């Protein structure tokens, strides 16, 4: 559920939306927002402690291709981890029905170890950096 203006978590949700909308797609010269991979309603926020929020993102990949979906999941996670200005826990999922192997993909993109190992792979890291870096 999306908190309304004035409710705790509204600012948190808005921060998250603003951070992810400008992430670029790994293959196309568009942002995830332009491609409707992420939308206003794909961000869910829950207060889990004092000034701490659980942020849940459900994204819809443009093509049902595994490696691209996990790559987008990785970009979402990295940028949010770096840019969210409050203490948070993050869960990222493919929106239901968007992929045939979504359970496996969801496991991968939420596996902290795999994410850490992926970011130590120079090739993957380079792609992610290009997708998440704000243009000057």
């Amino acid at each position, binding site marked *: 559920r999306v908190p309304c203006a004035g409710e705790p978590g509204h600012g948190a949700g808005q921060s998250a939306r603003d951070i992810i909308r400008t992430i670029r797609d790994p293959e196309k010269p568009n942002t995830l927002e332009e491609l409707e991979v992420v939308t206003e309603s794909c961000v869910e926020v829950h207060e*889990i402690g004092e000034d701490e929020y659980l942020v849940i993102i459900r994204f819809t990949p443009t093509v049902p291709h595994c490696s691209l979906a996990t790559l987008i999941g990785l970009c979402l996670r990295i940028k949010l981890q770096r840019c969210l200005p409050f*203490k948070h*826990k993050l869960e990222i999922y493919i929106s239901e029905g968007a992929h045939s192997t979504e359970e496996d993909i969801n*496991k991968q993109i939420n596996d*902290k*170890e795999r994410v*850490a*190992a992926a970011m*130590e792979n120079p090739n993957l890291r380079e792609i992610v950096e290009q997708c998440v870096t704000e243009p000057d």
Partner: protein
Amino acid sequence: MKDSLSLLARIPAHPDSRCWFLAWDPSGTLLASCGGDRSIRIWGKEGDDWVCKSVLGEGHQRTIRKVAWSPCGSYLASASFDATTCIWKKSQDEFEVRLSLLILTQGWANRLVRGLHLGREIVWQAMNAHEIGGWGVGGGEGSDWIKCCSGLWDSAACSACRTALIAVWCIAGVVCSGADPSWKCICTLSGFHTRTIYDVAWCRLTGALATACGDDAIRIFEEEPLSNPQQPTFALTAHVPRAHSQDVNCVAWNPKEPGLLASCSDDGEMAFWKYHAWIAGVLL
């Protein structure tokens, strides 16, 4: 319950990085930590303080995920995301790399189990389990089992998983022909943890079960004194909600000093705790 797990010290073990794992040496006097900064640190006590005795920084090119001591305490194995394992030999107070092996699994881990979950079947592989006598199993309804450890008794094991459940297993009555006993789940602890459980450690001295959770908390469970060994019940005897400022990745009981627990976190810190067991409602 509030006072049963008290903080002794907090150390920035791997600053600006993540501390993934901790391992006590067999004598209980040294603690090895490893992390995202690609180094291993060996910690020892000097007076009342924990100090870093060595930094083993030249062995790996990527995150070091786990370390393990040999049973004799003279060797340390480290496993890294760079797909190698290093074996370090201790001479005096120094460590040097003796062997660098291009393998993906470790040698002397004393929590030894790797489970392969094939649909609903459980296939288990114990590595070097015969040296320590522990076997581990796990399974479940499609959930991921992250960690297993052997318990106080050789016939009991405990596993922790992604969906925040802990299961306790024991060897089923009948021993099958061949080396592998069959296991059954005798207890499940649910409703205590709010996020993934990254580690579970069963103290061989006291029987207490510690958990490291993605909700930043450390919890301790003990078997109820009069519970049926075939269907044990466990009580939560300690809960520190903000044990660290981020996910707790590892908890490790000191093998010689009862109640001494070390923990580490994504925030790069390591903490030492003293656990006071309860008997019949009285804090010891």
